[in-house]
């Protein structure tokens, strides 16, 4: 972590974590416009704070936490409470992908956050609990409920390959 050149670090971080931040924001909001706002704000906060990271993992976890906080703030804002609607016309290459993505987006936000971090970012339950600052059992039960909901919606469930 050489902090010698701040802007280089910011640029490298954006290059590396762009999609991670954006995809998480999308998973939480389902809305391109809001996700783009969140995306910018996350990296602006990074630039503003230039926090000291112990490791690359630490940095990644920080970005995830900030992304979650930013989406939370924006979704809670009084202007948007009832308007943060899913973008209906996201395009995917296969209908399966489309259906599964929308199935996840239709879950409650805390479920889809866990789903995204567990299946997509491949964090363990323990790691997710650390990142979200929520206890492990809660994460386990959210994951289980999310899975069972998905099983009802999706043919053949979510877990199988």
């Amino acid at each position: 972590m050489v902090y010698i050149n701040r802007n280089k670090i910011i640029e490298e971080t954006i290059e590396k974590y762009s999609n991670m931040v954006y995809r998480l924001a999308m998973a939480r909001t389902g809305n391109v416009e809001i996700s783009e706002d969140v995306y910018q704000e996350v990296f602006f906060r990074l630039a503003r704070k230039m926090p000291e990271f112990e490791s690359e993992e630490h940095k990644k976890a920080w970005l995830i936490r900030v992304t979650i906080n930013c989406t939370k703030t924006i979704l809670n804002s009084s202007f948007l409470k009832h308007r943060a609607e899913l973008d209906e016309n996201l395009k995917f290459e296969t209908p399966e992908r489309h259906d599964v993505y929308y199935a996840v987006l239709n879950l409650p936000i805390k479920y889809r956050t866990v789903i995204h971090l567990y299946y997509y970012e491949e964090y363990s339950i323990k790691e997710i609990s650390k990142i979200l600052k929520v206890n492990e059992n809660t994460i386990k039960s959210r994951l289980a409920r999310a899975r069972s909901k998905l099983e009802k919606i999706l043919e053949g469930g979510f877990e199988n390959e």
Partner: protein
Amino acid sequence: MSKKDYIDAVNEIQVSEKLKEETIQKAAQVKSKKTYNKIYPLASLAIMCAVLMTIILPHKSIAPIGQLKDEIQKDEAEKVESALPKVENFENFYAMLKDREDNYGLFYNTTADTVKTESVDSINREETSGDFSTTNVQVEGVDEADIVKTDGEYIYYIQNNNITITDVSDNTKMLSSSKIEFDDEEFNAEEMYLNDNKLVVIGTNITYNVVEDSTETKYPSNTSYTIASTYNVENKTEPELERTVEVEGYYLSSRMIGDDVYLVANKNIYTYLLRNSTCDELEEDYFKPRYVDTALGEETKYINYDCIYYIPEFEDSSYLNIAAFNITNEEPANIESYLGAGNEIYASNTNLYVTKGKYNYEENGGNYDVDTEIYKFNLKDATCTFEKSGTVPGTVLNQFSMDEKDGYFRIATTDSTSWNSEDNTNNLYVLNENMEIVGKVEGLAPGERIYSVRFMGDRAYMVTFVQTDPLFVIDLSNPTNPTVLGELKIPGYSKYLHPYDDTHLIGIGEDTKVVNYGYGDQVVTNGMKMALFDVTDPNNPIEMYNVKIGKKGTYSEILNNHKALLFSKEKNLIAFPISITEDDYNVTFQGAIVYGISLDKGFELKGKITNSQSNIDKYYSRNTVQRIIYIGDTLYTLSRSLIKATDMNTMETKGSIIL
């Protein structure tokens, strides 16, 4: 259907390259607690303007809007006598902003590019009362905030958004007295002042919101406050928060004169809300600048439109907010709000000058004309009153480009008429108390731009650069006839000039060399360089000594922030934080470098002090030495992890404390 489909689906979700590029650009300009390379904001401003030029059709300068036209013109005529006109009510506000929005469109957020800079003057500043260093400021008697302050017994240091107060009366056994912690994640402690038993912490608080206009289109909307919290630190173990003054806007800069603090902030006005809404549909209060002064109570107050001034011909949809208060009493803070914006500030003991770049494009696009508008405010007893405004051609580099002496304001600018730097010329203007140009030198070093300026009494020293560094010596003893007396051409350039004494000058900058990789000559940096100039004979400035440090990639905050310098002529001492890069971009050292300095011997390396414990440690920013200060014969290097005491004479470590 499976989780693999989910993963594949997510993989199809991509950030657009455009957003990514834009974010990289903008993030580089976001102000962090540390001040870094100033080239970036300039470069991105250039890019932004270049983009604008391709997007916007050329336009004339703004015509005052119908209903206000007469009023404005009348005020312009009376400008010399009267204060600024007031906005008066929301209808006027709406009309003015809407007009500028229509004419200027994309200009609405140019203030976001403001770079924080602070100011320093001509006079050689030696340490005041005790035997300890103080922040390297531009003007004697006008204090500037920094991340570290000391009273000779205690060191106050902003570190990881906390302020640690460390008892250093015994430098072998430093003790932590207390820590002021800011729980609020959104609050960023930026810098502070120490004045007797009062510690004034300047910080910013930014919250992220979304607003929507009448068509239900959503826009992001940051609410930022610049905050000054005054602590009583009489009891070092229990600092007590006495008062908080918050004013809306991004922190531009601040000064402390005597017991009076002056805060300058820029607040963007989100004009996109005006675009699709009529005046009646909008909430008046939303656009008013807000402030909090705990001397008046905890609640947020609004500045009403009948108290808001506007700077005629303002271009930016933003407010310039200035808060002033005395730290020793509970008198309500004086908050002044102007429709307008600022880029750089300079403060003398009695006046505050805020500058703002103004671009006028030619009808056919391409070329443009750039001017700097200067707003002069009188500072007195914690009040700030607008006095005059003036305009000079060109743009200013930083606070050191400006100076005030005997009622005359002096300013150095780089002027250009296109993005091609070949058109650059460098100028110096002298303005009288009414902000009228009375004297000038124009057309210096064509094709180059200013890298540093320093005013010392009746002289100005100016460094411009393309391949070699001319150091100009300009005589200002006759304000109406400034004259170039001499110039010195040497390789490299100085980014900061510091007076050694009346006839000698220290330049700190970068060494350069000309290389040719097969596509023409290029100038590349080649490590840092520090030089001592003899300007006894202004017609023949001489480089007496120079020392080169490291290779390309070597960086010190001093290149962009004068507060990183520790200098004492009496102690023959010059030191600053640095990270040294040798070949292959390998950082070989991070810490502070300490030189002896004298007219007989020039620079003598005394030693290097690192706060890293091991070789690998130097890569961690927590060990990065941010400042070096002295108390008595002890040097203290400060990094977020550690304060370390080193004997100034033997360069032996005397003690350290982990923060």
